[in-house]
C-alpha cells in the first residue's frame, strides 16, 4: 500500500481515440492518412498523417497544408464513446470500480483486483492483453501510480514508451518532480493561461513549482495555483476530500411512461443537472465525479462514473448522460424496454476554490446571469433557436463562422470553444467583413452600360465592365467595383463548385458582395 496514504490508481489511455472510433464506425478506412478536428484544432492524427507532419493542436490550415490528401473528420463525441463501450465492458469485468474519464480514457482503483491477480505487474499485463484484444491493435498506454494525476501522466508516457509505466508506491513525488508543467496541462490540471504565466516566470518543472513558498503561490495564483502545487508535490489531495459522501446531493426523475427516445431522457437530465449544479454552487462546491444511473422497465440498469478534474458544469454533465445512454441503448441486448428512471449522483465534489472566479480569469456575475438566461431561453424557444458562433474557416465571408446550438457548448469554457483567430485564409476576401449575410441570398442582375448581362469567364475575368445592378426591379448605377475573385471549392472532389465574387458600390450608397455561379448572380453579403 502507498505509504503516502494515496490510492493506487490505474489509468488506461488509448491514443488517438477519435481516429480509432472513426474506423470503428466505418467513417474512415484503416491506414488511410486522416486527422480529426475539433473546431479549428487537430485533436487526433493517424500514423500516416503524422509522418506527413500533422501534429496535435495544429490549426486546420497548417494541417491541410502538411497533408493535403488526408481525410479530414470532425470530432464526434458520441461515436467515440460508443466505440469505447466494449473496452469499458471488458475492463469492467476485471474490476467493477472504474471511472470513464472520457472516451478513450478510464481509471480504476486496483487495490482489490491486484491482490487477486497476484500483484500489480501481473494485473497490468493481464489488463493490457485484454485491452489490445478488444481494441484490435489501437495504441494505448497503462499507467499505475499513487493518485490520479501521476497515474494519468504515467499512462500518457506509456503510450510513447511502452505498454505500461508503473510508479512504485510512494514514488509519485520523485516521478513528477522532473516533469515539465506541460504534462499537467495535458491531463487537465492547469489551464493554458496559468501555464503560460508560470513559464514566463521561469517555473517550468513540477520541482520548480513544488519548491516555491506556499504563501507566494496562493497570493500570485490563487487557490487554483495552490492546488496545482500540491499535485506537483505528489500530494493528490482529492483523495483526502473531507466531504462526507453521504451529504453529497443527488437528483433523480422517474418517468410514468417508459421513455424510448434517448434525447427525451437527456432533456430531462438537463434540468436535473442544472438543479444539481445550483445546489452544489450554493454550498460553494463543484462536482468532479458524477455517477449517472438509468433503469428500464425490465430493471436493466446502467451505472457509470464520470470524472473531470476541472469540475463538471451542467452542460458537461448532460453531455456525459448522452454518451452513456447512447452507448447503452446502442449495445444490442442490453436494453429491452423503455427507460423508467434517470439519476445524477454527485459522488465526489471539492470546494469551488476560485479556479473559475474572476480574479484568476474566470466567470463573473454577468456570465452567470447570461448562462441562466440561456438555459431559460432554450426551454422557451427550443434547442435550435439559441446558438453561439464557432469558427469553421473558409474563403467566403458567410462560411467562416457557423452558429451552433448552445446545448452542446459549455458557454464559459473558453478552452473548449473555437472562436477563431480572425486570420484570413489565403485567397479569401479580407477586411472589412460585411455586416449582413442574407440567409437566402437574393438574385440580382448585373448589366453593362448597354444593358447586357455581365458574366465571369473561365479565366476569372468579367466580360464587360459592370455598370448597373438590378435588385427587385430597382436599378442602381455602379460607382465602383472590384474583383472578380474566382474561387474553386473542393477541387479535390467531384462536386466542386466554381464561383466568383465581385464587390460593388452603388450610387444609392449600398456596398454589396455579389457572387456568380453558373451565370446566376446573387447578393451574398451587404456592407451595411
Amino acid at each position: 500500500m502507498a505509504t503516502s496514504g494515496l490510492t493506487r490508481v490505474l489509468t488506461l489511455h488509448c491514443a488517438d481515440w477519435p481516429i480509432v472510433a472513426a474506423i470503428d464506425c466505418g467513417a474512415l478506412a484503416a491506414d488511410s492518412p486522416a486527422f480529426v478536428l475539433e473546431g479549428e484544432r487537430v485533436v487526433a492524427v493517424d500514423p500516416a498523417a503524422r509522418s506527413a507532419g500533422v501534429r496535435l493542436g495544429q490549426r486546420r490550415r497548417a494541417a491541410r497544408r502538411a497533408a493535403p490528401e488526408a481525410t479530414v473528420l470532425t470530432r464526434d463525441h458520441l461515436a467515440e464513446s460508443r466505440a469505447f463501450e466494449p473496452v469499458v465492458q471488458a475492463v469492467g469485468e476485471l474490476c467493477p470500480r472504474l471511472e470513464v474519464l472520457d472516451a478513450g480514457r478510464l481509471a480504476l482503483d486496483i487495490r482489490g483486483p491486484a491482490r487477486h491477480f497476484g500483484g500489480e505487474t501481473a494485473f497490468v499485463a493481464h489488463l493490457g492483453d485484454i485491452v489490445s484484444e478488444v481494441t484490435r491493435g489501437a495504441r494505448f498506454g497503462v499507467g499505475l501510480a499513487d493518485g490520479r494525476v501521476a497515474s494519468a501522466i504515467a499512462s500518457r508516457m506509456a503510450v510513447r514508451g511502452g505498454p505500461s509505466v508503473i510508479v512504485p508506491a510512494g514514488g509519485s513525488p520523485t516521478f513528477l518532480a522532473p516533469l515539465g508543467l506541460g504534462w499537467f496541462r495535458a491531463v487537465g490540471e492547469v489551464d493554458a493561461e496559468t501555464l503560460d504565466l508560470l513559464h514566463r516566470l521561469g517555473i517550468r518543472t513540477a520541482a520548480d513549482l513544488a519548491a516555491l513558498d506556499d504563501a507566494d503561490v496562493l497570493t500570485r495564483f490563487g487557490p487554483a495555483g495552490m492546488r496545482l502545487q500540491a499535485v506537483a508535490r505528489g500530494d493528490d489531495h482529492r483523495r483526502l476530500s473531507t466531504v462526507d459522501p453521504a451529504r453529497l446531493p443527488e437528483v433523480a426523475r422517474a418517468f410514468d411512461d417508459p421513455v424510448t427516445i434517448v434525447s427525451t431522457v437527456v432533456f430531462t437530465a438537463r434540468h436535473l443537472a442544472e438543479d444539481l449544479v445550483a445546489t452544489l454552487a450554493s454550498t460553494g462546491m463543484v462536482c468532479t465525479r458524477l455517477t449517472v444511473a438509468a433503469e428500464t422497465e425490465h430493471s436493466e440498469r446502467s451505472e457509470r462514473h464520470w470524472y473531470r478534474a476541472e469540475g463538471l458544469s451542467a452542460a458537461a454533465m448532460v453531455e456525459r448522460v448522452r454518451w452513456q445512454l447512447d452507448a447503452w441503448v446502442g449495445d444490442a441486448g442490453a436494453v429491452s424496454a423503455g427507460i423508467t428512471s434517470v439519476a445524477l449522483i454527485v459522488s465526489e465534489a471539492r470546494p469551488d476554490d476560485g479556479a473559475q472566479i474572476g480574479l484568476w480569469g474566470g466567470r463573473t456575475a454577468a456570465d452567470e446571469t447570461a448562462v441562466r438566461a440561456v438555459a431559460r431561453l432554450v426551454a422557451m424557444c427550443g434547442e435550435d433557436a439559441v446558438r453561439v458562433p464557432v469558427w469553421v474557416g473558409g474563403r467566403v465571408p458567410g462560411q467562416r463562422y457557423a452558429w451552433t446550438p448552445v446545448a452542446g457548448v459549455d458557454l464559459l469554457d473558453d478552452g473548449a470553444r473555437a472562436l477563431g483567430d480572425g486570420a484570413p485564409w489565403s485567397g479569401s476576401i479580407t477586411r472589412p467583413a460585411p455586416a449582413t449575410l442574407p440567409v437566402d441570398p437574393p438574385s440580382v442582375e448585373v448589366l453593362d452600360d448597354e444593358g447586357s448581362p455581365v458574366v465571369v469567364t473561365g479565366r476569372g475575368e468579367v466580360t464587360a465592365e459592370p455598370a448597373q445592378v438590378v435588385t427587385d426591379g430597382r436599378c442602381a448605377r455602379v460607382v465602383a467595383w472590384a474583383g472578380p475573385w474566382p474561387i474553386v471549392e473542393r477541387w479535390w472532389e467531384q462536386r466542386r463548385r466554381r464561383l466568383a465574387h465581385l464587390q460593388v458600390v452603388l450610387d444609392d450608397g449600398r456596398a454589396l458582395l455579389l457572387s456568380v455561379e453558373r451565370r446566376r448572380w446573387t447578393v451574398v453579403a451587404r456592407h451595411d
Partner: protein
Amino acid sequence: MDGITEISTDISTDIADDAGGLDVRRGAVDRRRPPGSLAAAGVRHGVGPLTGERVLPVPGAVAPLFPEGGLVRGRTLACAGHAGRSLGLALVAPAIAAGAWLAVVDLDDLGAEAMTEAEVPLRRVVRIGVSGDGPDPARWAERVGAVLDGFEVVLLPDRRLPEGLWRRLVQRVRSSGAVVVVLAASEPALSVDSVLTAGGSAWVGIGPGAGRLLGRRVEVVRDGRRSPRRLATRLWLPHPSGRPLAAADAGVDTGADIDIDVMGPVGRWRRAV
C-alpha cells in the same frame, strides 16, 4: 461609486439625464477617476463588470454623439442608414469587451465575422431566434423580455409591434437596465429613445474595376426623444487601416498603416476584351 458622481458634476454636459444626476463621458472617466475606483467597480478584475455603471462605454470616436457619456442603461436606441449595422456593432463592442453579454435576437443574417472585426468578443455573444415558430407579437415580446433578464446588451431587428406591447417591453428594458439597440434599414418602425443614422457613405480603396473595399466615411446623425438637438459627427466606419471605427480626422495618409500595395493591384482584374 462616490468617485463617479463627484467627477461627473464638473463635466458640462449638454443633456441632463432626466433620471437624475449626470453621467460621465467615458474617456473622461479613465483619465479623471481617482486611481483604484475603476478597479473597485470591478472593471479590471472582471468581477461583475460594469455593475453599478449607469452608462455602458462607447468608442471614443462617437463621443460627440453621446453627451450622456455612453449607452445609458434602460434606454432604447436605433441604428439605421447604409452603415447602420456596422455602427450598431461598433457602438456595443466596448461594453461586451468589458464583460457584458450580447444577445442577438432574430437577426440570423448578422455576420459573426463583422462582430469580431468590430471588436465584439464572440465568447459573450448568443443568437436567439425568438420567432422561430411564428410571428405572434405577444409571444415575441414575452421572449424578448426573457432575453432582457439575462443580457446587458440586446440587438433587435426592426419590426412592427402593437403599441401596448412595445410600451410594456420598453418598461421592462428600463427595469432590467439593459441597453436595446434596434438595427433598422431606414426610419425605425419601433419607437425608440434616439435614432442614429449613418448615411452619406463614401468608400475608399475601390475604383472602377480596381482595388477593393477598404474604408468608408460616413456621417452619423443622432435624433430622437432623448436628443433635444440634432447631433452629428463624421466617422470612418471602418478606417482603411482595419480599425472598425475612427474619427473622421484620423486620416489615411497620416498613419503609416496604409500604403499603395494594400490598395490592390490597380487594373489587374480589368475585363478580358
